[in-house]
């Protein structure tokens, strides 16, 4: 934790998602969120699944596509300041294992939510909109693109 001293990795954010156990922790985290929501009375199972999907996608959107820069200083003179965490991943290289995993996982959660909501129309619309909000920014074509200037600065 020697902040500000010599360090060979320019941006540690590029490697966090490749560390051992991060995928398992992510899956366990989503599972724990689901169990916590299931424990709340008054919530039916379809509502819980939709809430799990929406909360998960909202968190993923915020931490991967809205928050820009790094929470610590990096020696790259601010190059990463305008990049979202998703754009910093794996030095910007597309189609890496981590990118594939984090692209597929909300889709799997969406399938599960659709199944357990018995394809109800209202739940379907909410879940689909939520899924698109995290899937569209992950497209390789939209790397570094800011549609209508959203989140540009």
């Amino acid at each position, binding site marked *: 934790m020697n902040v500000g*001293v*010599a360090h*060979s990795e320019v941006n540690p954010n590029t*490697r966090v998602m490749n560390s*051992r156990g991060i995928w398992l922790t992510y899956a366990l985290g989503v599972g724990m969120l689901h169990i916590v929501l299931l424990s709340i009375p008054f919530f039916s199972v379809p509502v819980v699944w939709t809430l799990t999907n929406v909360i998960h996608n909202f968190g993923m959107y915020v931490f991967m596509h809205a928050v*820009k*820069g*790094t929470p*610590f*200083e990096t020696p790259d003179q601010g190059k990463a300041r305008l990049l979202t965490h998703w754009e910093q991943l794996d030095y910007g290289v597309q189609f890496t294992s981590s990118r594939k995993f984090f692209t597929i996982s909300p889709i799997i959660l969406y399938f599960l939510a659709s199944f357990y909501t018995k394809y109800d129309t209202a739940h379907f619309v909410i879940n689909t909109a939520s899924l698109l909000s995290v899937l569209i920014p992950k497209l390789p074509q939209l790397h570094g693109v800011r549609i209508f200037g959203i989140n540009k600065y």
Partner: protein
Amino acid sequence: MTESAGTKTEDCHAANGVKPGRNGMVKNHHHHLQYQKQEKVYHAACNGELYSRPFIESFEETPMLVAVLTYMGYGILTIFGYLRDFMREWKIEKCHIAREREEQKDFVPLYQDFENFYTRNLYMRIRDSWNRPICSVPGAKFDLVERSSNDYNWTFEYTGRVVKDVINLGSYNYLGFAENTGSCATAAGEVTVKFGVGVASTRQEMGNLDRHEKLEKLVASFLRVESAMAFGMGFATNSMNIPALAGKGCLILSDELNHASLVLGARLSGSTIRVFKHNNMQSLEKLLRDAIVHGQPRTHRPWKKILILVEGIYSMEGSIIRLPEVIALKKKYKAYLYLDEAHSIGALGPGGRGVVEYFGLDPRDVDIMMGTFTKSFGAAGGYIGGRKDLIDYLRTHSHSAVYASSMSAPVVEQIITSMKCIMGEDGTTIGRSRIQRLAENTVYFRRRLREMGFIIYGNNDSPVVPMMLYMPAKIGAFGREMLKRNIGVVVVGFPATPIIESRARFCISAAHSKEMLDRALDVISEVGDLLQLKYSRHKVLPSLDRPFDETTYEENEE
């Protein structure tokens, strides 16, 4: 006289085999010669043709449960960080951070608020473990200035007391030359009276003294190379000389764990930089072959030169470079080799000449020998050794030689005196016995830690001993608990290390006596039990204690 290949192969195989102990007990050995990200540790035979001694290193993988708990720990800390930021924003909690003034709200911000998130919310809570002021020379023991904090480490107050006789496991004092008494200190004092404390000019101008010339001749003879050049700053030796060696149209192959000075020098040179996996010869060879086959990007012309950057001992990992294999690859593909011996000079090899002597190799096979005087010599600055035409070129093209002020005369004298001591030219065996004691202390300390069940990284002969702590809460806890028991250690965490590999890094010194090491080991075991740090799943049976012998390579030799 070189040994036969058969003998070398036999030595290597014996190191991997299982032999009955002295009393017939078969010891359970684990030699992990290769670190693979995708697999667990496994046995691999070392190449007997290249190595003249066993190459034993261990990188036990992080247990999966510990990894998950570590991520959860960081996740919880992040959530509390956002909560604290919210409370500061709404004045619920007092704000100690630099803030924009209200009148400048509509201007471009002066502070990058998010870049300070880690510092103010995670680092600040445990920053008492770092940057502790000391009030004595950092030898085997040192004194710390005691300080306290009333606002959770935002500010410190000196209590006026001194923590005395703290065992120092944090300084790079490999050969114990951090002393304020003895022949080195005396000689430095005399030179200070004669030459003063600084020269205020560069090597190319008025700053060249005859002591500098003498030092460079001594360094060249110590390294057994044609010529050498000294610089006043160790970091600048790398960052200011690599731009003088490589430029546009060159390729630099850099180990992924190289020090920031090497990374900065590579970047300043304007060369293309490619990174190979840490100490992974297959990765390096693949990059070399691809570079030669495909040439430069787009034009596919040959590279002007290919430079391999490696370090002798990696200071965060404790590993030793596989230099025989790197030299074989360098010769095969006709690349240049830049070897940074910042930590390994003085700390490896029977004569303290570094990793080249440790493996019994020819110094002329290494094109650029770089090292620092800041660790084993108790001084400051660095050197570059090599052929005479290389050094003459650097004298006129090195940024350090042209622009930086040259080394201070008492620092030069400290280096000269300690280097002569190491070479035995002072007529004593002090240097040789220090090197021997460092090797003995290193092997003993590592073996005891491994027997206790800690996960230790690095080569068995490396005096840098990283011990895994993993969870962020244990970083500060370990540092504090050790200092309570009068032992000073260095703890390191993310972002300086991978996120699940926070560690404590012990630096063994020849100045440590066995009683000090035993005391430190007892305390580490006690704190390890208290914080549950004994993560290793490969239990090592306690071996029979026997005196260290430099010629004994096998752990279980009868």
